[in-house]
């Protein structure tokens, strides 16, 4: 369920990261995504990064959406 939104990892300090979305920045815990790197986008849920967003898959989904909308 649950509100989780994509946020950009700007910097990492131990188990905390500074993340940014639309100009808003916040501290977030990366305890659940220890392999995250600066420049990655994560799904932010209640102050924790719960997953790393896959930009390749994101683009694939957009491609699929465009294709499906042309074909009936």
């Amino acid at each position: 369920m649950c509100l989780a939104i994509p946020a950009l990892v700007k910097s990492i300090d131990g188990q905390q990261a500074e993340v940014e979305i639309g100009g808003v920045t916040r501290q977030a815990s990366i305890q659940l995504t220890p392999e995250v790197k600066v420049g990655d986008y994560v799904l932010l849920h209640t102050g924790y990064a719960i997953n790393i967003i896959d930009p390749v898959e994101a683009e694939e989904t957009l491609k699929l959406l465009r294709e499906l909308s042309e074909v009936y």
Partner: protein
Amino acid sequence: MEDRILLAHGSGGKLGHDLIEKNFVPALGNPILNKLDDSAVFELCGRLSFTTDSYTVSPIFFPGGDIGKLAVCGTVNDLAMMGATPLYLSLSFIIEEGLPVTELEKIINSIYQAADEAGVKIVTGDTKVVNQGTADKLFINTSGIGIVPPKVNISGANAKPGDKVILNGNLGDHGIAVLSKRQGFEFNVPIESDCAPLNRLVSEILSTSVNLHCLRDPTRGGLATTLNELARQSNVGIKIDEASLPVNEAVQAACELLGFDPLYVANEGKLVAVVAPSDADKVLDRMRQNRYGTKASIIGEVVKEHPGKVTMKTLLGSSRIVDMLVGELLPRIC
């Protein structure tokens, strides 16, 4: 001079008098206030508008303003929403003992700046000091008096089908700016409260059109609540267009983070003007020339359908109800 406000400051004795004479009067002084009589005496002619409001915002300092600025602008705007020219304000403080005097001085200075911009005078006041823990640093009450020019007839009950609904700028700045500084939230937003006196904007609208039917400022409860109030009072429907709602990207992002809808977030420098369709464009042009209306836009219209309710055309083109705010806005996980 003590560096913190003490109970003695509110007891009517020497400390209190010093506070008034050394802090309040020099900053806010005017011929009526300076008399320091039990009440202010002045002459007025015409239809009077009278309002009161109490301010309990926490924290008392936030990006773009403080409780003092809010206390002036909020009451000035309540008068302005009736088309009144605001004239005089009363100012009451309930101060929690221990408040640093420097903070009080900053707030008094904000009050002065806001009153000066709005062109109003603080003519009477009161100060009470209460025990620690019984007031959250500082509460302020302001009451205001203004004069409604002849022939001006603005009321929430005057909206007519066909009228256009105009908003003067971005939604949600104030609520998000305040929340960002509240303990437990701590996110950084490049957003300041939009707190501002709107009386001059209103008089410019009035000088442009005699067909201004309703004015309201969407404060607590946000735009959604205000539009519902108007729809009910006038017994009309209101339709708004999601794509036309102006929201700053950072406010949108903060709302996404917390699970808020910008339609419900408080504003303190916004107004909704409901205007006859013939005058909508010229009112819009005039508003855009005022510093508090540069982003003004038509966001919807008044309709015969679904009286008392507000609907919104979504980004996908379908329609849904926009209800009033229930309870308070709380961040959610789901």
